[in-house]
């Protein structure tokens, strides 16, 4: 198991800059999720740790050792890719044996069999062992590919969107399985995904990557409740955080150009939040609530019923606001409602830079 550090990594492909000044610290035994949109540089980061790509600048450390000149084999990592990369024409068992069979570090046959069987049991693919890999379903293939990673005892597991090609049910099941597996092995995991639900539910720590830069690193709780900037706020969470332009006037949040006011006083007040400064108010949909005596009137624009809850889109003037309400709330489209927010949960961002005032210090 290992501790991974990336120091000031930059990577360019020709004219295209994939990563700039990236710093990352993944603790031993941590489940670290790298979250970002397609093209943010997640895969590049992962390939650099694996040794498949060399950084243009900066250093990669594994357990404190600079591994710049180490090949993929010496780094002793396991990589699970989105496209499975199973070896064609071999059975599942042969695929699982593959990493154990090279002559240099050939294990005794009994040991190989034992490890393969154990991995197969963990991933529940024992019944598939003698099947050819091209006769497997997507989920089965991905399990085999994870199995090929765990038969070895690598120092780090690197996973590049391993679940994104699977259907929803299976994705959920494998998500739990992977998390359990990581805890069981006590292994260091770096998991790359664009799916914020995966990031929130699996990660001990989440790093949000945007345009080749780490925007924020923290526990899912921190990322969710105290996003560093408006990008993280709008990227993490489904539905995303409501972001409304406005300013503070005498302890009230005055939304302009939307023309409504909400009370805003007390603990949430941050040092930089002076009266009149242009701000962006961020409020999670679940912290917006409907109440008959609430200060602002809106119309229900849309209702999405999710079973456990309903997600309402409220229309104030021509602005839209999302609110999560209990499923039994009875609302109809175009019905006028009144809403308020929980001022303690409001996050303030600077209008110009988009940075969270609490992070700006």
């Amino acid at each position: 198991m290992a501790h991974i550090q990336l120091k000031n990594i930059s990577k360019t492909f020709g004219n295209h800059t994939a990563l700039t000044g990236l710093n990352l610290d993944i603790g031993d035994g941590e489940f670290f999720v790298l979250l970002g949109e397609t093209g943010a540089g997640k895969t590049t980061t992962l390939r650099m740790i694996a040794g498949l790509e060399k950084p243009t600048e900066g250093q990669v450390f594994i357990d404190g050792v600079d591994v710049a000149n180490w090949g993929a084999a010496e780094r002793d990592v396991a990589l699970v890719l989105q496209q499975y990369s199973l070896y064609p024409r071999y059975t599942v068992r042969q695929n699982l044996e593959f990493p154990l069979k090279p002559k240099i570090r050939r294990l005794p046959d009994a040991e190989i069999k034992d490890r393969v069987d154990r991995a197969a049991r963990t991933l529940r693919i024992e019944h598939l062992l003698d099947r050819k890999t091209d006769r497997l379903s997507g989920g089965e293939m991905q399990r085999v590919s994870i199995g090929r990673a765990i038969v070895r005892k690598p120092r780090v597991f690197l996973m590049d969107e391993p679940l994104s090609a699977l259907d929803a049910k299976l994705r959920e099941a494998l998500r739990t399985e992977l998390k359990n597996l990581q805890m069981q092995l006590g292994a260091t995991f770096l998991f790359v995904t664009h799916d914020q639900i995966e990031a929130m539910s699996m990660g001990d720590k989440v790093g949000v990557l945007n345009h080749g830069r780490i925007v924020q690193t923290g526990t899912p709780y921190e990322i969710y409740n105290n996003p560093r900037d408006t990008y993280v706020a709008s990227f993490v969470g489904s539905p995303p955080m409501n972001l409304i332009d406005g300013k503070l006037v005498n302890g009230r949040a005055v939304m302009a150009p939307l023309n409504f006011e909400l009370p805003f006083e007390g603990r949430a007040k941050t040092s930089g939040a002076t009266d009149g400064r242009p701000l962006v108010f961020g409020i999670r949909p679940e912290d917006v609530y409907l109440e008959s005596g609430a200060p602002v009137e809106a119309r229900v624009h849309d209702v999405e019923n999710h079973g456990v809850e309903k997600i309402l889109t409220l229309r104030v003037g021509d602005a839209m606001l999302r609110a999560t309400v209990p499923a039994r709330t009875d609302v109809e489209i175009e019905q006028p409602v009144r809403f308020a927010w929980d001022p303690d949960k409001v996050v303030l961002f600077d209008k110009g830079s988009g940075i969270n005032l609490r992070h700006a210090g």
Partner: protein
Amino acid sequence: MATAVMTTLDPNSRSAARGMSDLTIRNLFIIPTIVFLIVFNIFPLIYSLGYSFTDFRASSPAAANFVGLQNYRELLNDPFIWSNFAITAKYVIVSVVGQVIVGFGVALLLNRDIPLKGLLTTLLLLPMMLSMAVVGLFWKLLYDPSFGIINYTLGLGSFEWLSNPDMALYAVAITDIWMWSPFVMLLSLAGLSAVPKHLYEAAAIDRAGSFYTFFRITLPLVAPILMIAVIFRTMEAFKTFDLAYILTSQPTTEVISIRLYKMAFQEWQTGRSCALAYIVLIMILAITNIYVKYLNKVKER
């Protein structure tokens, strides 16, 4: 059904403007080819099958007599014919194995990022484009014991390549390898570049060495297309005539098609040579069938 579709005339097409239907156009292109095929391929094939059961000699005015399977019987009992087949088999094995090793080897070397790769590949393909007769003639010069460049570069003195009965067949095979390795190379290159890169990356991550990666990943994935190259080259080598005929006239290089040529056009045993031609045809078909069966098995795996 296709005919039905084709007979309907698209009123806007240019052919319609000229008063020709699509069907007419199609026939205009296809019928000459079919006529050509029938006159020069199918008809002689069937006609010679008929001759193979007679004692016909094209050099004599005597009428052909039906002799049944006598030609076949005699040919298959002729030890000289069998020695011709043995020579042919030896030639096929040496030349095809050589071509696969050289061609696949060069393809492996080319299958990476090297400068001028395109130009290099094109240049390497040139031998394949030459005419057999030309290749035969200038390799004869290259092999020449007194002034040939091969002996000069290898420092072999006046080593006899083509007039040495033990060496001549190999000399022909080497020429064939020189000429046709590019073909194997081209197909291998196509096969190699079709191996997905992420498999190599996965193997590198799995800490597989380069030999292990080659035998466990590269080779099995290139095998089907390599097999196709082998089929083509075996068929061609089996019926080699020009190279061997031009380069040497040793009895040890008398491959089956040279024997066939001599039988037909020097000894004028027309009926018998037709029978021999059929025997060769059946053999090639049989070999090809074995290969194709094997190819399907390789593909399935």
